[in-house]
């Protein structure tokens, strides 16, 4: 059985009277991709800051690769890679210089920056100053920087937010490659499709607490409903929508009735989305 890459128990963080993270607990196995979802202000960033040694927990325990994040923050940081949501690169330096700087900070003596830049699609622009890069290029460089030390755990905060489809797809490909290499990925995102597509499990966080944690499939099974959506034409020629909820005892009869009685123009199956499930659990949307 895979060892836990991250183990969190009763973790707490407060800003004055505000409880940002309220006694949360979860585990992430090595090599797993965990999607960490929740609206703004839910406590996701504070949780990530504690796991990456930027904030000291005010209660509970958090272990990363078996190391206590409060006691061994320096060692933890040597084993992880972090990609921030907001661009924070040295814009007066080139992409290669940015990567080489971080390689030196990680104490890596033989570092092939060119290869890493090629991997994220920035070959040929490695000597240009970052200030001239597009948002997508900067984001790809941020991802490359988080990979400089071949991290065992990769923390990615909205890695594809606001990117064009090609850049977003390039970054998703790198995330899957990293998982293939054996890295654990802690993916914070608002993009439900992305979380659904990439994550082995997803955790929903709301008001400082984890309100659900499971595979996307199980969450959909537990909280969502599958349905057939059809567009039918009435004898008067009018188009109307019909919905048949699946997995119910009466479902076969309803489907039969649909095809027998009306002229079906289009039909497709529909699954609950993670967004639907989050709304069902918390009563509010992810982007609130």
């Amino acid at each position, binding site marked *: 059985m895979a060892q836990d890459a991250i183990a969190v128990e009763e973790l707490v963080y407060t800003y004055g009277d505000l409880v940002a993270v309220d006694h949360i607990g979860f585990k992430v196995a090595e090599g797993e991709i965990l999607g960490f979802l929740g609206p703004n202000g839910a406590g996701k960033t504070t949780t990530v800051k504690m796991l990456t040694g930027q904030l000291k927990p005010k209660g509970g325990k958090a272990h990363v690769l078996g190391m206590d994040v409060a006691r061994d923050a320096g060692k933890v940081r040597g084993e992880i890679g*972090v990609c*921030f949501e907001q661009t924070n690169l040295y814009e007066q330096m080139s992409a290669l210089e940015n990567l080489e700087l971080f390689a030196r900070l990680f104490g890596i003596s033989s570092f092939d920056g060119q290869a890493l830049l090629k991997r994220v699609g920035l070959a040929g622009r490695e000597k240009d100053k970052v200030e001239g890069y597009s948002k997508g290029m900067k984001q790809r460089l941020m991802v490359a920087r988080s990979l400089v*030390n071949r991290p065992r755990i990769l923390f990615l905060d909205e890695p594809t937010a606001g990117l064009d489809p090609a850049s977003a797809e390039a970054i998703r490909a790198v995330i899957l490659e990293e998982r293939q290499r054996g890295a654990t990925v802690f993916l914070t995102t608002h993009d439900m499709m992305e979380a659904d597509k990439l994550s082995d499990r997803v955790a929903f966080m709301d008001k400082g607490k984890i309100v659900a944690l499971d595979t996307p499939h199980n969450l959909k099974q537990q909280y969502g409903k599958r349905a057939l959506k059809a567009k039918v034409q009435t004898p008067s020629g009018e188009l109307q929508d019909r919905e048949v909820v699946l997995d119910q005892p009466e479902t076969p009869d309803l489907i039969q009735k649909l095809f027998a009685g009306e002229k079906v123009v289009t039909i497709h199956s529909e699954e609950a989305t993670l967004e639907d499930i989050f709304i069902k659990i918390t009563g509010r949307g992810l982007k609130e």
Partner: protein
Amino acid sequence: MNPRGIRALVAKDFTLFFRNRFFALVTSLALVVYVILYFVMPGSVDETLEIGLYAPGWSAIPADMQKEGLEIHVAESLEDLEDGVTAHDYMAGIAIPGDLMEKLASGQRPQVDLYFASDTPEEAQAAVSSLIRELIYAQTGQPLAVDFSTQVLPGPDMVGKQIPPRDRMRPLFAVLLIVFETYGLATLITEEIEHRTIQALLVTPVSVKDLFAAKGITGITLAFGQGALFMAVVGGLNDQPVIIILALLLAALLVTGIGFLIASLAKDMMSVLAWGVLALVILVIPGMGVMFPGVITGWAKAIPSYYVVDTVDRVANYGSGWPDIWQNLLILVAFSVAFLLVGMVALRRRFQ
């Protein structure tokens, strides 16, 4: 501590500093301009005091009045005398009445008129008045029945110790070069905070202590390097180089602490500029005191840079040694350590 990390951060800071066109230009230009200014300024002191004299009853200037360092120009008329003063041909004009001796002999109080240009400093007027009283006393054998107000100029007695203007400027230039780095360092740190690159650094094995060490090394090297280079080029390290270097090093430590403090107070680059200019103006004030003795008085001792300026001035210009300036250095150490500690505590809070 992580020496490799600190080295990498210092190298990065220097790269960014010199890629900032403003800092690269100002740093190199200031150094060059101050060195040029130093060499084009007079290297010797003209101690001759030129005075105009209108004395209608006197056939010749008494030889006693043509003392060494005092040059008397005889005016043909009162109008000539006034023109000479207005045109700055001489510092002061004296109009002695033709019946001076007779009035004195008869016990009357003759009137001696003194003329100064409107921009002649009050201190210079008082000094010239005293000099004239002495000269006339020497001629007539009795005190002149004219009241002169006498003012004592503050500051050390420089009689016989006048130094060329360019050497006077040395401490001011050195302090200007060093103090500017307060702004440079504060900008480097504020940029890191504003652009959130500090966040990226703090998820690597680099600790906050390593960051402080790196910023400290950068600040001290930039400030001290320029100050020491300037002093070396202009011959300021010829006497007691160890004391001067120590004073410059402590000054660099001081501006690094102030740079940390400004970075912790500043919300953005504009506020760095505002705080930086304020610090620059305050820290340069003691340098003005060396250039213009008497302009500032004891209150300047509350400004930490006073002890840098005073040490450099006394050692480089007047040959002072350890026994004369050890107190200065001690106070400077106290100021530097205090500012560095306060700056680090304040900045640490900002980082978090």
